[in-house]
């Protein structure tokens, strides 16, 4: 029923969203995620959903807000500067407590930046560029199969917490092809199921209930504070329930890489290269960037580890979270490229070895 196929990342992301039950997709052209928008324009309608091309990313996220208000499974995708334009919407959607899934196929910045892969959206997605106290769940897959699995999970997480979820891929993952299994599980909820499962949704009252209101404006300061406290309780629960990571070879490691997405694949190979030179290296790979898996760093072998490296395709953003997790117990150093430049495994291994020599 579900067979392995060779697919481009961006198309696989779309296929996964359709199987997750996506009802509505809104997009706007931006590189390097265009194949995802194109795929949804072609395939979502055939699967019983609705595609619309918006006039801007700002309109796309607000269309998705409308679709989510109406109780439907809504999705947007974009790339870094487009995600920046959507930040107003993310803040509103988090405030109004609506489920939404967004895929960010990120590229280099700031500004227009470039169209090659980048991870400099780390702060944008984990800290939020919108106003107010809110958080967005961020999944960071390292391969297309994990991206497919996490996109399906993202719809569930968004629905369960009534909160936006971003799946952060990068231009490399969007553009490359890999064998992947897309589980054939598509099911769309009927109007009566939506009304029953989402009693807050704008489905039309039908005269059977009082009118529903989806709001994010609270002019009374006490009401807004109460709302913020309620939202924060949800975020605290998410921090307990959602952090995920993968640890690799931590036992006996002298160097521990921290890397997510594409970089974690390069780090895996760098670990092997270092091993050939007699250096034991391991890795903590955060799967959720928010909530960040701070507790993963408690598993580091403190008797052997001399150095923790944050490997990033940015000028160093995740390193702030790594430092929060390490709490000064070990040195934390950055190895990075930016602008769309990507280090090779050999380059990463050599730079890590050079850094390690400073702590021998």
């Amino acid at each position, binding site marked *: 029923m579900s067979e392995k196929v060779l697919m481009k990342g961006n198309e696989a992301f779309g296929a996964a969203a359709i199987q997750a039950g996506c009802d509505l997709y809104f997009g706007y052209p931006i590189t390097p995620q265009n194949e995802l928008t194109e795929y949804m324009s072609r395939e979502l309608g055939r699967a019983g959903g609705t595609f619309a091309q918006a006039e801007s990313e*700002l309109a796309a996220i607000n*269309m998705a807000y409308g679709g989510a208000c*109406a109780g439907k499974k809504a999705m947007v995708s974009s790339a870094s500067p487009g995600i920046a334009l959507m930040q107003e919407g993310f803040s509103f959607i988090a405030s109004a407590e609506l489920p939404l899934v967004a895929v960010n196929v990120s590229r280099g910045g700031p500004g227009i930046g470039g169209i090659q892969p980048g991870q400099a959206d780390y702060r944008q997605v984990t800290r939020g560029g919108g106003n107010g106290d809110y958080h967005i769940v961020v999944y960071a897959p390292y391969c297309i199969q994990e991206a497919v699995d996490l996109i399906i999970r993202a719809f569930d997480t968004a629905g369960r917490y009534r909160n936006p979820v971003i799946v952060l891929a990068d231009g490399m993952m969007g553009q490359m092809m890999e064998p992947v299994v897309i589980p054939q599980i598509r099911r769309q909820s009927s109007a009566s199921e939506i009304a029953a499962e989402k009693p807050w949704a704008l489905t039309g009252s039908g005269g059977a209930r009082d009118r529903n209101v989806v709001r994010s404006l609270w002019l009374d300061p006490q009401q807004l504070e109460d709302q913020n406290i309620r939202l924060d309780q949800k975020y605290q629960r998410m921090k307990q329930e959602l952090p995920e990571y993968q640890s690799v070879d931590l036992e006996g490691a002298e160097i521990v890489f921290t890397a997510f997405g594409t970089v974690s694949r390069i780090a895996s190979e760098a670990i092997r290269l270092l091993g050939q030179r007699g250096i034991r290296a391991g890795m903590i790979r955060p799967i959720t960037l928010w909530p960040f898996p701070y507790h993963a760093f408690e598993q580091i072998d403190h008797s052997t580890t001399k150095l923790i490296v944050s490997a990033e395709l940015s000028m160093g953003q995740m390193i702030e979270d790594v430092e929060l997790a390490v709490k000064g117990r070990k040195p934390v150093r950055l190895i990075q490229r930016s602008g769309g430049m990507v280090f090779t495994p050999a380059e990463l291994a050599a730079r890590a070895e050079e850094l390690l020599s400073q702590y021998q």
Partner: protein
Amino acid sequence: MKPIFEYTKGMREQDTHYCPGCTHGIAHRLIMESLDERNALGDTIGVCPIGCSVTAHQYFNVDSCEAAHGRAPAVAAGIRRAWPEKYVFTYQGDGDLASIGAGEIVHAALRGEKFTTFFINNAIYGMTGGQMAPTTLLGQKTTTSVDGRKKEISGMPLRVAEMLSTIDGAVFVERVALDSPAHIRSAKKAIVKALDVQEKRLGFSFVEILSTCPTNWGMTPVKAQAWLRENMIPYYPLGNFRCPEEVK
């Protein structure tokens, strides 16, 4: 005894926060009673974006959401795709629709979105305290044009109904005013036709409603009505710009 006039079921029985003499209340009532008359209150979803009417959902007896400043037409486009068989409307002021949301309203018209936009044009920003809007008249004094709007600096006031009527997807476009009982009766007819267009899925329908803002105009409600009549209507002519045969 037989009642001759009643509260419409479309409005919730509570006081509004609008200033004395503001015509939002009349516009609210006309829209809601038009929906009630077609027995559509249970099948309607409204979008109330930022501006004085962002809390209109407290008065409308239909499912509603708030929207970010200017984004109501995009939000309504999303709702419309979720529930193609429901009535969907946006209720937008002139700062919201003609300034920050100019892109969204043009593209909603362009796509022929099957919802209705009610556009409250009172030639000023109300909620933020009387700043110049794209619709502010030449010479009109506001808190950001204290010597009066000047063409050289701010251009001419934007005629939104005329602009939208150049777009094929906007199949029903009419401008009405709320300054007199006769005009209010005409406004009601336009609202009903706009909803007819939506019911028949003919395309985007748009009703521009010239309204008063006595507080920010610095006038009594009565003077404000006269000012609308003497200053706004000559620049913003009333009438229908586009109407499909099916609802004539």
